[in-house]
């Protein structure tokens, strides 16, 4: 019963050692070892507790942070839908600086909210413009001090899997990030580290330990992340196919990395997720942006260079219907046309051997963007500059711990 009453206890030191250990183990088994409870145990100062923590490899930094961009002021239904999954974690909510209305956030969460004045204070009023619209999430990534970040758009709810069970997107992202990725050879049974799967015949043994997974890209049921022309052509099409797989995106293979439902290891690749490409007509619907696609290409190139893995697949979130694809069409032609340049460009980028940290890699990519794309469209020149500025900003504001990236 002590396990259930842990939320009411503030001091465990009066407990005899053997009871303390027993309580610790039972708490762990019951899945109730939250960060707060762990701190309670650590606060007892008992050696046995420390050795147990070390032996079981429990890390306080595993707690994810969820920056959620607030593009609409009323977050009540969003947060209530996610409550059972999010309430264990520390949340970072970043309000789009262009949003005028007050935010409505329900009670009962451990969170920090950042609004325009906060953003201005941290980065200065001239720099804070880079965080408008969907790019406000990058501010959250910048100020977080946790190891893992999970980022979900505020028009997404938890999805249900094929058995009708609610998907814990956070848990799945963490699993993806804490198990190895296998980018050098394709496993036909998908993620070999999933329960019930393994490497297939013909998979070289030397590649079976895999590499660290730096990025986990989730998917969407209902309103898939199509561009405006595609959704406008098929206005009724909704994604109802739940694909029960996670797979590693092979090295040197690029893909459109959507920012709607992603997670990453901030310590390893934090600086590579960045606000840089801004469309002339950048809007407030995902159809009207390409910032995440651009950022995602940078991340993949950097991961490929540094030997980190990127996974895609589960978890799914349920994305609510929003916006009018046909209305957005006008704005998004710009982004759609851009990809014709952007994709071949990133496919050709080769980073130097000297680029050994994530920051160095980003700086090099910025340089190549400036040289090769800058003259084609001022948008690219601005993007390159934004990338350079971001690296500086990350170094001054973003890193309390260094992120070697290797």
């Amino acid at each position, binding site marked *: 019963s002590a396990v259930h009453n842990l939320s009411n206890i503030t001091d465990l030191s009066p407990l005899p050692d053997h009871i303390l250990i027993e309580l610790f183990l039972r708490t762990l088994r019951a899945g109730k070892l939250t960060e707060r409870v762990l701190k309670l145990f650590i606060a007892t100062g008992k050696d046995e507790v420390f050795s147990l923590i070390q032996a079981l490899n429990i890390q306080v930094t595993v707690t994810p942070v969820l920056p959620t961009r607030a593009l609409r002021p009323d977050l009540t239904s969003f947060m209530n839908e996610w409550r059972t999954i999010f309430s264990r974690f520390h949340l970072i909510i970043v309000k789009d600086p262009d949003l005028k209305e007050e935010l409505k956030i329900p009670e009962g969460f451990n969170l920090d909210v950042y609004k325009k004045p906060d953003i201005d204070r941290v980065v200065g009023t001239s720099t804070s413009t880079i965080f408008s619209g969907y790019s406000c999430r990058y501010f959250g990534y910048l100020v977080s001090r946790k190891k893992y970040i999970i980022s979900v758009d505020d028009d997404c709810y938890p999805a249900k899997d094929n058995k009708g069970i609610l998907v814990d997107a956070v848990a799945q992202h963490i699993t993806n990030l804490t198990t190895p990725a296998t980018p050098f050879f*394709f496993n036909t049974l998908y993620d070999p580290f999933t329960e019930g799967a393994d490497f297939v015949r013909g998979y070289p043994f030397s590649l079976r330990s895999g590499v660290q997974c730096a990025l986990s890209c989730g998917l969407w049921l209902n309103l898939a992340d*199509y561009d405006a022309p595609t959704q406008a052509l098929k206005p009724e*099409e909704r994604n109802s196919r739940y694909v029960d797989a996670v797979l590693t995106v*092979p090295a040197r293979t690029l893909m459109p990395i959507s920012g709607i439902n992603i997670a990453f290891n901030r310590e390893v690749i934090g600086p590579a997720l960045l606000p840089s490409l801004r469309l002339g007509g950048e809007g407030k619907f995902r159809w009207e942006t390409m910032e995440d696609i651009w950022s995602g290409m940078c991340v993949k190139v950097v991961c490929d260079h540094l030997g980190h893995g990127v996974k895609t697949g589960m978890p799914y979130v349920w994305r609510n219907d929003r916006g009018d694809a046909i209305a957005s069409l006008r704005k998004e032609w710009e982004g759609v046309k851009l990809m014709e340049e952007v994709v071949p460009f990133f496919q050709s980028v080769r980073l130097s051997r000297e680029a050994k940290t994530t920051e160095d890699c980003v700086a090099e990519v910025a340089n190549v963007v400036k040289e090769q794309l800058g003259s084609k469209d001022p948008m690219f020149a601005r993007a390159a500059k934004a990338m350079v500025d971001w690296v500086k900003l990350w170094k001054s504001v973003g890193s309390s711990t260094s992120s070697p990236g290797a």
Partner: protein
Amino acid sequence: MAEPATATQAAAPVVALLKNELDIVIPTIRNLDFLEMWRPFFQPYHLIIVQDGDPSKTIKVPEGFDYELYNRNDINRILGPKASCISFKDSACRCFGYMVSKKKYIFTIDDDCFVAKDPSGKAINALEQHIKNLLSPSTPFFFNTLYDPFREGADFVRGYPFSLREGVPTAASHGLWLNIPDYDAPTQLVKPLERNTRYVDAVLTIPKGTLFPMCGMNLAFNRELIGPAMYFGLMGDGQPIGRYDDMWAGWCTKVICDHLGLGVKTGLPYIFHSKASNPFVNLRKEYKGIYWQEEIIPFFQQAVLPKDCTTVQKCYIELAKQVKEKLSKVDPYFDKLADAMVTWIEAWDELNPTGPVPNGKAA
């Protein structure tokens, strides 16, 4: 879910796509009873049965199937000295079936593979799915996060360049297996009870530049596009290695597809794999392969084919040359294999002459 479908007879009447353009190639040493289960899906098609092992044994084919059967004597008769490239006492001999076929498409399946059920309990027509995979384009140049965009209910995601949305022709369709997964011997020994019960409802294109382990148990391909690359190597009797036939074909095929701008898909359809082969026997066969693949994989990953290799045969001959140059030092076997690869192409061209040149003589 890990049960084969039994109600295939009750399945709705099947429209046999590509009825006259596809051959089903089946290697066997046992019997073909498994065909009974596949009857509603396979009966409209022509079968090519390649009988491995003792040619004096008679393989009984269930009534009502249209087939041709080849045993070792037939192979020797038809190919003469070139028969040396076809494996003996190994299912690798199936590639002889690819060579003698006159059809555009091939579907090959093992005789311990049965009809699987999808999560709704419906019998899966694996052949139909393979045909869908082969008849729709592949997208090897950029990864689509919603998998095959040509499937019903899916499309290209935001950020996918429109210029790449036409895709390229699909050369091969690699299906998967429920129940007994295609593990190697060490994995089988460590996890003898593991069964694949996960139905992953996806087809995806394997990106350009990425190699994969191609399993021959449930495989279809466009013979006109990639046929000559599907040589299953020298395995079995008299050879130092076994159970790497399909792997070898898969690596060659993928390198050539990448060079020629063709696509390879993997994922659906599933079949139900019923028989787990003896892991100790497998270990003895695979043993050398497990070491050699550490050299073979980098070889294929780094293989570059010159621009003037514009046909599959030219690509394959060039690969054979590179195998001889670079892999012979791993083991003299690769020297033999390289020669056999050349013999295979010679035999292929003999049995599959290209059309007559304008003056009427065969090319």
